[in-house]
């Protein structure tokens, strides 16, 4: 004990300083709460929302837009229980039991089916994809590829991408050997790394590290999605409980406006306005 005393003394100023700094930070972050907007939900839209939020923050320094992930189910529950002013969800259809009065379609997004670049297979039918995910086809050689086990990569059950993917393919039970990753990014990393893997993710997040296959002979491209031919597509919703607050409304208007939509389009998503025409 006595040996520790001389060491403890010079440190003693650190604790009050730390507390003072922590209090200062806390006070600073709470200061203008009224003009902050929080978004939460869909990890597919999260990177785009972050970019939009940065652009909006730059133009409106008085409003602080915060973007959180969590998945579409989090987006829905956050909008309902008020944890976020705007919930983000990418779903083919909103769950009927979720009572959300205000829903804006802010973009539309294709779901690309991806394999490792080393995989020779470039075209799969919807039925084959379904068989792979249901566990009926387990080896690439059954699809004309090399003798290699298929590593099926899916998402957690609260994911909007997963629920859209399963809804469009037709309901099935996911093979229980499927690897579950909890974001688009980790799905991409897993598929990029495993020569036998297959996964699916937001079209806007396709990169050179993985290869998007044609579905029913059609590549996942902006033109084919816009033409309504590529079928793995779902809308991205902003959800609010009741009327959005002025700050939240401002951000939604920005996203739906020409600048926001142009930014969404430039990053590989489809603008919301086309969805009104298509649906």
């Amino acid at each position: 004990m006595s040996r520790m005393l001389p060491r403890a003394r010079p440190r003693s100023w650190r604790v009050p300083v730390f507390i003072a700094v922590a209090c200062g930070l806390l006070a600073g972050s709470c200061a203008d709460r009224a003009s902050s907007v929080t978004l939460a939900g869909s990890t597919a839209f999260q990177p785009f929302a972050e970019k939009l939020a940065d652009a909006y923050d730059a133009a409106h320094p008085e409003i602080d837009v915060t973007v959180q992930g969590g998945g579409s189910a989090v987006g829905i529950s956050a909008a309902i229980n008020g944890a976020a002013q705007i919930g983000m969800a990418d779903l083919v259809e909103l769950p009927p039991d979720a009572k959300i009065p205000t829903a804006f379609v802010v973009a539309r997004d294709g779901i690309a089916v991806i394999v490792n670049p080393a995989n020779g297979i470039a075209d799969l039918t919807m039925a084959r994809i379904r068989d792979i995910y249901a566990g009926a086809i387990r080896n690439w050689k059954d699809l004309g590829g090399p003798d290699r086990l298929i590593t099926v990569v899916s998402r957690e059950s609260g994911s909007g991408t997963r629920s859209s993917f399963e809804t469009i393919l037709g309901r099935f039970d996911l093979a229980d050997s499927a690897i579950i990753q909890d974001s688009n990014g980790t799905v991409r990393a897993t598929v990029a790394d495993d020569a036998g893997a297959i996964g699916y993710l937001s079209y806007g997040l396709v990169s050179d590290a993985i290869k998007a296959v044609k579905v029913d002979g059609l590549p996942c491209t902006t033109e084919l999605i816009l033409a309504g031919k590529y079928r793995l597509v779902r809308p991205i919703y902003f959800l609010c409980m009741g009327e959005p607050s002025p700050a939240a409304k401002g951000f939604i208007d920005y996203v739906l406006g020409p600048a926001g939509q142009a930014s969404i389009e430039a990053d590989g998503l489809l603008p919301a306005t086309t969805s009104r025409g298509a649906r």
Partner: protein
Amino acid sequence: MKAASDRIAERILLAVACTAILCLLVIAAFIFKEGIPFLLKVGPRDFLFSSDWRPDAGSYGIFPMIASSLWVTFGALAIGAPLGISGAIFLAEFSPPAVVQVVKPAIELLAGIPSVVFGFIGVMVLAPFIRRVAGGPGLSVLAAAIVLGVMILPTVMSISIDALRAVPQSFREGAFALGATRWQAVRMVVLKAARSGLLAGTILGMGRAIGETMAVIMVAGNSVKMPASPLDSARTLTANIALEMGYATGLHRQALFATGIVLFVVIMILNASAMAALKRKGAARR
């Protein structure tokens, strides 16, 4: 005067100590309050021994996750405990003090590395390596066990070093006087005397391994089935809670709290049996 200030200090410390226990009780009460109704509704048998986990279809069987948690934890112990204890023996008994002064802080630093970093290294380096060398998806029980084995090293090692150092020098001198070599003295005398401390370090390491979540989610693959081999992907109890708690509602949410109860009980059983083993050995020695 002094007695009064002593009493006040004592009271304050008592209150602080009680807060820690109170936290534990409140957490336990909360988990049980949320999870028990589910256990009563679904029944412990279907919950604990069914292998079918599909919350959207109303089936809640966590048997594969209990098994996965045990696989991963004992795998981590099989890797971390021998490395940690033998490292501790070297540092406490054989190495020159200069080496200890560098290595021990370095190992303690290892304890400060966040678990996502371990997980990230596991995903980027270890999983591809396992896939290349041994096959399977790479994200597997084995990958999780290795990552956790490294993560528990600092715990096991630093407590083992303390245990070995606590053995009185006279024990070693006695052994040397009887003609023992350094290794013989360590093996026959010091290790036996430090046994309870070494076991305590291993138990704490086990607690960290079974409770670890982030790194395991990243490297274990999280598929909801019984792992048939160490190369299969698996989902632990902690991973199940963390993956689904964000969006679970109603019965599904209660099922996750019930998963928490199971985790709680598994940890209690492991700790209690380790304590019992410790006591029995202690009694046999006397």
